[in-house]
């Protein structure tokens, strides 16, 4: 299993568009940007609704459960900060409540070989420092 204890992750820098996402993550909640006109969830946040181009967008909580949409297993150690964890799974997840809104993460607490397209995963939160908490994923407990 990947040893993440020696990995120094780049720290996300929230901006005016993305701050509500990171504020929610700090509280242990996933909030994604939702179009108030057509109901579409999107991620990463954007200036307008990517479906209907409405401009009234708000962050709303979604359940932290979803499916692996795609993944890669990282072997390359070019980025020394991640070298200690190689090989590890970086995954793209589609949450049940937000079809089409793709969230990146690592598959934690599992062998990298467990990453498969279609596998069920759930959100866990990894505190990076006092300001930033990172949404991450692990295999879903039985539903």
């Amino acid at each position: 299993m990947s040893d993440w204890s020696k990995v120094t992750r780049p720290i996300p820098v929230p901006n005016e568009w993305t701050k509500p996402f990171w504020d929610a993550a700090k509280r242990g909640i996933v909030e994604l940007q939702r179009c108030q006109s057509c109901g579409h969830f999107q991620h990463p946040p954007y200036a307008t609704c990517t479906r209907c181009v409405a401009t009234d967008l708000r962050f709303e909580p979604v359940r932290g459960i979803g499916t692996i949409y795609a993944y890669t297993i990282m072997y390359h150690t070019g980025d020394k900060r991640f070298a200690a964890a190689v090989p590890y799974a970086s995954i793209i997840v589609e949450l049940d409540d937000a079809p089409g809104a793709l969230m990146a993460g690592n598959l934690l607490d599992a062998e990298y070989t467990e990453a498969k397209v279609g596998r069920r995963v759930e959100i866990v939160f990894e505190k990076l420092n006092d300001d930033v908490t990172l949404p991450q994923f692990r295999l879903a407990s039985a539903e």
Partner: protein
Amino acid sequence: MWENRCKVAVSGVGFSKVSRTADVPLAVHALTAVKEAVADSGLAMSDIDGLATYPELPATGHAEVDGISVVSVNCMMAMLKLPDLAWHIQVGTVNIGGAVQQAVNALLAGMCNYAVVWRAMHNPRGTYQNLPSGMAAGATQFTAPYGFGGPGQGMAVAYTRWLERHNQNREKMATLAVTQRRHTQHNPHAYFYGTELSREDYLASRMVAYPFCLFDCDIPVQGAVAIVLTTADRACDLKPTPAYLAGYGQRLHFEVAGRIGSLADYMEGGRSSAKLTWERSGFGPKDVDVAQIYDGFSASVIYGLESYGFCGEGEALDFIQDGRIELDGELPLNTFGGSLGTGRIHGLWHIIEGALQASGRAGSRQVKDANVSFVGASAPIVTGTTFIFVREPY
């Protein structure tokens, strides 16, 4: 059909030495390629009155220094001192294919008579994707904390989705890598000219970002290539047989920065670009005699073959088997070796090969009776452009 079909042609082409290390400044590579392309056309340098390029270094965390890591129009003009320069441009959003398309438009509009387009690529010292900061700002805030660094991982995630959705096996990609490397042995300008690759080599090679092994990724190199474009009537008077441009397209599908892994984005990008190219040229995938499809990462060829319409979705790894992409196959593919054979110079070399095949000038790798020559000049998702060159301007 396009009213300007076959009214512009590629004439001369030129190449610098391709090497791993920057033993001379990049400007010298670019100058060599441009001089060779102009000489190949039989023109004097003073005839050139149009310049276009895409001056970009795809590596992360390295300074862009003109003449060293990029070669701008300004840098080229300072070297050439063209007496009659009438038009120039550097494109920002459509990679080198966009620079070629802008030169075509300028020629059609009468803004210049002989345009040179070059692509110069630097290989910086040290780590290629050099991520210097401990902070992830902008679009990277949602990707970099999880280890997503270079473009390879972004394409790798879409590739796993393609493989598993279509129940496919990455080992079939060995056919692409091995066939292209065999084609490379007919291209003396290529980095891997003289170095063979076997199926066993491919299957035993180390993983970089699964499903990509080392031989799914083009090797970073230092080098430059160039072409001369002119109007069809002028091209007829020049030394080389012209390759006429029957049509071109750009990708029209856009997605939000920072969103990665979407297979649909690649497919929509490729479909929109190819649709324009088929409509303008009057040809369809079945008419194509030879194809060059951008292969900076091998999976890009899959997305290209499927989204351009050469085969159905989920079929590309089967499509490339059984000799179909050999020089004498049904669809000879990346006949110059592709980026996997030449090294990372981006799509201008694909465009050059598309033109050389159409004009019958591809030497020992010439595809017999090649009239309709297709080019997909970059990954369909971000900067996709497509072209068709023909030998017969009808």
